[in-house]
């Protein structure tokens, strides 16, 4: 079984700081990490490999520095890593990114048939959740998003049964391979890399692919040219500096306190009162 896992290197959003004067994001000194959502997909792929055997290839599109994120995946136990990197990709939105990654996966497939593709549910820097589905569509694969559990995998029949978190419940879905899966966060816990794999990662030469190696002929579909999304403005939200009002509860009945709260709420949001009254009627 051959599984391809798509990952992205992202700035550690927990450590990102907004410049107090210029309002721009201060990237200096902010460590780059593997997008946390991708790790749930990688771990699930590695578990399938542990159980059924096979080969896990990790792929990423990004600047040369993303090599670090791919090496980390090797340390966790991935077998191979490919970084699709080319100046021509600069400025790509999710449409262009999914095109480039899909094209690269087609190239990977030429060497070894791909049974499943895993991708992160979304990234913590873009938060679009579009690249995974985009790849599935382009590669004409069955798409299983927000998967919380893989129930069954029958390689002989080429069938998979999964649980998918949906609004209001869990769906149990069965489909044919090849498919693309994005795992829900918290569904597994990334393993602690072995010393042997840490050494393997330290020595592993990541494969660098440019647009040609990735099999891309039509450059109008990649990079800025292939990206219809326009970022018109970036701004930091204004902090809410309004202090909270503290209401003394000593010696008051809960009923009175509730009324006080409601009256304060309705004074500030008169429309809320109207709509509640309307609904009650």
């Amino acid at each position, binding site marked *: 079984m051959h599984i391809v896992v798509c990952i992205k290197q992202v700035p550690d959003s927990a450590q990102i700081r907004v410049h107090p004067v210029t309002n721009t994001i201060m990237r200096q000194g902010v460590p780059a990490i593997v997008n946390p959502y991708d790790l749930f997909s990688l771990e699930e792929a590695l578990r399938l490999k542990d159980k059924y055997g096979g080969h896990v290839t990790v792929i990423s599109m990004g600047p040369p520095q993303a090599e670090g994120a791919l090496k980390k995946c090797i340390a966790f136990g991935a077998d191979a890593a490919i970084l699709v990197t080319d100046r021509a990709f600069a400025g790509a939105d999710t449409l262009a990114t999914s095109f480039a990654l899909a094209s690269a996966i087609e190239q990977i497939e030429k060497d070894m048939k791909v049974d499943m593709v895993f991708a992160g549910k979304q990234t913590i820097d873009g938060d679009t959740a579009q690249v995974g589905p985009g790849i599935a569509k382009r590669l004409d694969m069955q798409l299983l998003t927000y998967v919380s559990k893989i129930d069954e995998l029958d390689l002989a029949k080429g069938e998979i049964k999964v649980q998918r978190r949906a609004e209001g419940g869990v769906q149990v879905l069965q489909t044919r391979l090849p498919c693309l899966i994005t795992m829900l966060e918290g569904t597994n816990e990334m393993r602690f890399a072995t010393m*042997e794999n840490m050494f393997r990662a330290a020595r592993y030469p990541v494969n660098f692919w440019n647009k040609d190696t990735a099999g891309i002929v039509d450059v109008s579909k990649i990079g800025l040219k292939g990206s219809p999304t326009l970022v018109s403005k970036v701004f930091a939200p204004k902090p809410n500096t309004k202090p909270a009002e503290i209401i003394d509860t000593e010696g008051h009945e809960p009923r009175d306190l509730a009324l006080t709260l409601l009256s304060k709420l309705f004074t500030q949001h008169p429309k809320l009162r109207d709509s509640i009254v309307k609904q009650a009627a």
Partner: protein
Amino acid sequence: MAEKFDAIVVGAGPSGNAAAYTLAKAGMKVLQLERGEYPGSKNVQGAILYADALEKIIPDFRDDAPLERHIIEQRMWVLDDESYIGTHYRSDDFNKPPYNRYTIIRAQFDKWFSEKVQEAGAMLICETTVSDLLMDGKRVIGVQTDRLGGEIYADIVILADGVNSLLATKAGFHPEIEPKNVALAVKEIHFMPQETVEARFNVQGDAGVVIEMAGKITQGMMGTGFLYTNKESLTIGVGCMLSDLKKQKISPYQLLEQMKAHPSIAPILEGGEMKEYTAHLIPEGGYKAIPQVFGDGWMIVGDAAMFVNAMHREGSNLAMTSGCFAAETVIELADKQKPFTAKNLARYREKLDASFVIKDLKKYKNMPDVFHANSQFFTTYPEMLNQAAHKMLTVDGVDKKTKEKQIMANFKHRRSLFGLMGDALKLWRAFE
């Protein structure tokens, strides 16, 4: 099969990087293990970089190292509650390259240094903690990490695992660190526009100012404060001996909050935005607290070996120099195909003894004891000095001779003649 290296360096701070870099440059097969997510992620320092020590290891570091400002002015403040008395030394000589001291931000600097180490050929593995040393009798033959299959072998293991070297303690190379030998320092980085930093300190371009502080900011505890200028931020911090903090039940952040509110300090920080808060232990036990720094198959460098000159706020330079000496010792022995026995590694201590590292620590060997036993240096004297200055500088119709007499009377009242003479003698002896 377990991996085997010529040398394993535990830790990727200044001492570990200096050792790994020097070893790798000499063509040795080096493994460096760091428990942090990346080099610098767990490292905290004021931070001043002393060019000399780094220059001896990487002569052209100025080309690409992330440096904040070079120091052209040093201020020493002795504070009481409302005022400070102090000295400023500023020289245009310090403003001519090659500069001697720089402020740095460690997370960035350590990353750069580590890249140099890896370019030199050392292998770095992060997020991996060395939990034990592998021993063959009394000889260290490798390390045990916290990962599955974590035994790694080496001919020599250099411990650069920082102030609280659990590894050396666990291996029985030195006892657990004592609270009286270690300071706990906290610091914050406050961001403000570059122009504001430059206007407040009367500097231009990349020039910067350092303020070292002592006095009532430490509330009678043995310790100091500091304020450094970075490119577009100020670093402010304070540190006191752990034993004092424990005794007085004061938390370091309270100390820092009070220090920040001092009328001479608050206006400097005005309008800045605090973006970073860190704390770290500093080994300040001095000469008498230095453990055995070498043995069969092992050496200790940097903070782990207590190489901090608390009097002059120097540490990273001692760390880099000791790391370099340890590496040179290994290289010299390897060249002569001699084993890394304690007897042969004694050369490392000889190199330290002949250098500023041990010479400076030896010079101030009694300092910790004197300050531990005489808290008046941090309370009474700062007050007396500030009051004296205040009196002399207030023009109120009282003649200067009378003012001098009043100042002397106050000194004697607060400290007695014997007390004053005794303190002077103690200080003179400690500095001698």
